């Protein structure tokens, strides 16, 4: 019982982070039907932002959160204008390897600047503290990260579903041509989607950096998990990304407990089974 609760708690906390990572990917896909291979690299950038703030400016890594989000936003918008906008018209294959190029570029740029060394954040209000509730032990940074993920999720959900801007974004995702006729600048909307996508995933990176190591090559792993998450939840579905993130976090922790060598296999097989029976994911349009 104790073990199970503890594992579930870990699974949920991990899942919240996965969900936040997947959110941007889902949003970007929903709006312009493009899969971003560089998604994990955006996260990596967020991690390095936290690292720089903490190691060079000796500030608490929590302070880095808004910076990470801002830089992620900027990175998303810049990538959109310089690359994505130009590959949107191309076939799916061209899009895939365009973003793959972006991924390689960011990864090795980071290696160029920061060397391949493994880094981590050593000081911070949250770093390395644990909290015990009964027999439940939780790393404070993971708990707070989970909470902030939930908050960011709610915020993005609110923007998309309750504001005029969100309505315009959704209109763009449904029918970009018609949206243009409404006077919506769809290029701006696409850039916005990339911005939000970049901001959320960089934020997730900065949160993750509190308890995770940082290297330039970390992105790919999370990109693949994010792919599985998004495809499981249904591309473009925010709620789907959220629930699928939680599911994957739980499965990863639970299967790791019993057959750790194959824990990714379980995630992939789950994804496979789900999409075979529901080809557009659990909550896909």
């Amino acid at each position: 019982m104790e073990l199970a609760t503890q594992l579930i708690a870990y699974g949920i906390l991990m899942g919240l982070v996965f969900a936040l990572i997947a959110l941007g990917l889902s949003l970007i896909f929903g709006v312009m039907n493009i899969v971003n291979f560089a998604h994990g690299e955006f996260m990596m950038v967020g991690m390095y932002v936290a690292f720089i703030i903490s190691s060079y400016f000796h500030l608490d890594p929590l302070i880095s959160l808004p910076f990470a989000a801002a830089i992620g936003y900027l990175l998303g918008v810049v990538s959109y204008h310089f690359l994505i906008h130009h590959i949107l018209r191309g076939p799916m294959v061209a899009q895939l390897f365009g973003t793959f190029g972006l991924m390689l570029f960011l990864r090795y740029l980071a290696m160029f600047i920061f060397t391949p060394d493994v880094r981590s954040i050593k000081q911070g209000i949250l770093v390395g503290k644990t909290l015990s509730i009964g027999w439940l032990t939780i790393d404070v940074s993971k708990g707070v990260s989970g909470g902030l993920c939930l908050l960011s999720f709610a915020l993005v959900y609110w923007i998309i579903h309750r504001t005029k801007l969100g309505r315009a974004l959704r209109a763009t995702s449904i029918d970009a041509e018609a949206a243009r006729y409404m006077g919506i600048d769809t290029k701006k909307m696409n850039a916005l989607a990339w911005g939000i996508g970049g901001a959320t995933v960089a934020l997730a990176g900065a949160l993750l950096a509190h308890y995770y190591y940082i290297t330039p090559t970390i992105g790919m792993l999370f990109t693949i998990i994010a792919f599985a998450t998004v495809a499981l939840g249904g591309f473009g579905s925010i709620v789907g990304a959220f629930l699928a993130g939680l599911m994957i976090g739980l499965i990863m922790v639970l299967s790791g407990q019993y057959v750790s060598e194959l824990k990714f296999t379980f995630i992939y097989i789950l994804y496979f089974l789900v999409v075979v029976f529901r080809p557009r994911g659990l909550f896909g349009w």
Partner: protein
Amino acid sequence: MRQVLKDIFSFEDRPRFERIGFVVFILIILVFPWMVHSAYGRVVMIKFLLFALFGLGWNLIGGYGGQVDLGQAKNVGFGAYATALMMFWWNTPFWVTVPIGMIVAAAESFGVAYPMFRLKGHYFAIATLCVALVWKELFVFWDWTGGARGVELTIRPTPDFTYMQFGSPIYYHYFIFLLFITQLLFMNWFRKSKLGYELQAVRDNEDAAASLGINVYRTKVITYTITGGLGAVGGSFMTVYYLYIDPDFVMPLDLSILIAMTVMVGGAGSLWGPIIGAAILIPLDMYLGAWLGAGKRLGIDFMVYAVIMMVIAAREPRGIWGIIERLRKKG
């Protein structure tokens, strides 16, 4: 039968400049080992031919079929493991292991194709990626495959045509060239075959294809199966070329992506695309890696590589072949 033979060997329907280019290309490859004395140059040539071979196979499903398959490495792995394990356990001659590897890969592809082709577009792409990763994890997990420790073959001291082991890369050069040209001729037949046309119809519009009496599902499954079998050939070659394989080496995600990428850069769905793509990406990658890879600052080679990729994706989504076609139409 005569028609089939003619279709295999005839490039008559291609424009003259293509045929001339093709002959020049073949001649270059034939004399290459005698003209080029740089060992690395030869190695790069072999790797180019290997990836052109992979690309030709992948082009079937990814180019002509328009289904973005990001899991071709698993088939490479099946071929590599079939050859390696059979040689390791039973000392089976290479030429026996190749068809077996192809059959295993094709059978597996056939098996997973059934549920997989319920999916379309990105869902399909990610499913192929997942399936390949699952196989890789299983090959690491199992003991009978040698797990993560891989399979190592013993070196044979003299050139050996039963086990295809040679000390000199020149043998490997002609050996891979033979495999490559066989596959190219197969593709030459395929693109003109009924299945080839049906596949392109399915790629362009599934509903329309069905309305013309094409069994969309079956067409995709058959193609995917053939693609699987073709992928295994290169895997078998890798085993006897490197004499060591492990799952991280012969079935990683990077390999799947690189295969897909060579085709995309060259031009998916065209006969020459995969060859052109491999001719550009492989030398570029290997020379950049050799020149810049071990410098003081790390990563410059990949950054150059990445920028080239992005520029091609943005400027010419139909690949280099798209540029050539366009220039030809103009000129």
